[in-house]
């Protein structure tokens, strides 16, 4: 094997990825020459200031945007093919639940579209609602729930059809810090229990360091990767790991990376 990064466990591979938007003010380089390999079971965070292309990259993986150059594969397929095979669940910045459906109805939505059997649908809804600790709330409507609970429901929705990859785009950005800490813990538990590959966009350094096995630092104009940090933290992470020396060192390195990217301007 010539290229050592093409191992069997690679789930997402980006090679020389470019994405240029044509706007009225001329071309905008949202992504330039992005190279990244994400392995099965990784928890990868993308961090950087706004406009660095972290969300755009995630949207490319989900085939919501289409790169203008380079190659991108998901499970060895193009993103569009991977989507048809239900390779990933996507969690957006806002919960985006349909207000006319109950929580259970919302979780059921992808299952209806993908044609799961009625009995299977109900079993899956029960299982994932339990997973995000929302059992008993299935009959409620989204607007009757708090913001944190709505976001948990949207995670359940992304989990319902058992995709291997979970893509999360600043899922807790709009929540307050206390709720956010608890949900971070829950996401870690979920990851440990399901063994999914997770791509996670954030602009919070502690969140990125606490959650990830791999931290991708990005910077804007043009959007690009400036540093990839493999975290030495153990898989078991209690909340107070944030006070440990390793945690602070990684956080420091992320901050340095962000600053270096900024000085390039």
């Amino acid at each position, binding site marked *: 094997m010539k290229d050592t990064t093409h191992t069997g466990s690679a789930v997402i591979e980006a090679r020389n990825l470019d994405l240029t938007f044509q706007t009225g003010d001329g071309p905008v380089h949202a992504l330039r020459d992005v190279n990244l390999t994400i392995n099965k079971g990784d928890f990868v965070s993308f961090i950087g200031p706004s406009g660095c292309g972290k969300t755009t990259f995630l949207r490319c993986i*989900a*085939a*919501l945007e289409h790169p203008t150059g380079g190659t991108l594969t998901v499970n060895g397929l193009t993103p569009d093919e991977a*989507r*048809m095979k239900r390779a*990933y*669940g*996507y969690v*957006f*910045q*806002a919960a*985006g639940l*349909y*207000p*006319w459906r109950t929580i259970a109805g919302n979780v059921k*939505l*992808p299952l*209806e*579209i*993908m044609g799961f059997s009625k009995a299977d649908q109900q079993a899956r809804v029960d299982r994932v609602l339990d997973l995000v600790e929302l059992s008993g709330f299935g009959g409620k*409507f989204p*607007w009757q729930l708090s913001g944190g609970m709505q976001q948990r429901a949207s995670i359940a929705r992304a989990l319902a059809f058992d995709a291997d990859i979970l893509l999360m785009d600043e899922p807790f950005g709009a929540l307050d810090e206390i709720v956010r800490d608890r949900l971070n813990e829950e996401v870690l538990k979920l990851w440990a229990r399901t063994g999914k590959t997770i791509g996670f966009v954030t602009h919070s350094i502690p969140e990125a360091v606490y959650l990830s096995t791999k931290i991708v630092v990005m910077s804007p104009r043009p959007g690009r990767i400036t540093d990839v940090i493999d975290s030495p933290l153990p898989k078991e992470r209690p909340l107070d790991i944030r006070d440990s020396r390793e945690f602070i060192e990684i956080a420091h390195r992320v901050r340095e990376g962000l600053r270096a990217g900024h000085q390039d301007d």
Partner: protein
Amino acid sequence: MSWLIGATLFWLAAWALNVRLAASRFGATRAGRITVAALFGITLLVLWEGLVRGFAVSPIILPGPSVIGPKIASSLPILWADFVQTVIKGALTGFAIGALAAFAAAIAIDRSPFLQKGLLPIGNFVSALPIVGLAPVLVMWFGFDWQSKAAVVVVMVFFPLLVNMVAGLQATDRLHRDLMATYSATYTQRLLKLRLPAAMPFFFNGLKIAATLALIGAIVAEFFGSPIVGMGFRISTEVGKLGLDMVWATIAVAALSGSALYGLIALIESRVTFWHPSQRK
């Protein structure tokens, strides 16, 4: 004179009571709101009666409620026949056809941005035109009976409904659309599971506007020719005979039908779009 004073006193007393009710805790409840509004309505009727009697207004100019009420009671068969002819056959048939046509047309042009761009400005413009003016033409085409009235109503309600429905189908969240994209949902799935439900508040807004237009269209069309039954026919002939009590009786029926139709649509709306922020309890 005593009628004038009495009516004025009643008005002052009712208003004072309303001011107190509005400021009280009861005024914040649903029952309180209805009470205040009803009291105000009764006050208007009492003032009307008081003015008519106090100034001894001739019933040829303005009959009081005490004359109109018995007239309604004694002319129920005629009023019912007029109601069936104008509201049920004319307005409601036309309303249903127009609503279905607008709904179907909105979905038909939904897949073509070109048609939407072409039809929307025209639809918007036509919605603002005095379409009632088409009534004489349609009466000429479809004859004097209710079919021509229904046709007028169809034309009147079609464009406001079409414009609302097209706007509604485009009114989905970007986030909700992206979500459907990540599921690789087909066009039909997107339409049924996302865009139609999201368009419902817009559609019902259009229906509420159209409900008023429907009755106006049906009645106006009768001014241009009708069989010897119908609310528009009744009004124009009774005005000619100076039978104003009958005119007012018909107006009362028209008002009641209009409000009932509007209320019915609002009720269905609150069932269908219970999730919309304006409907949440």
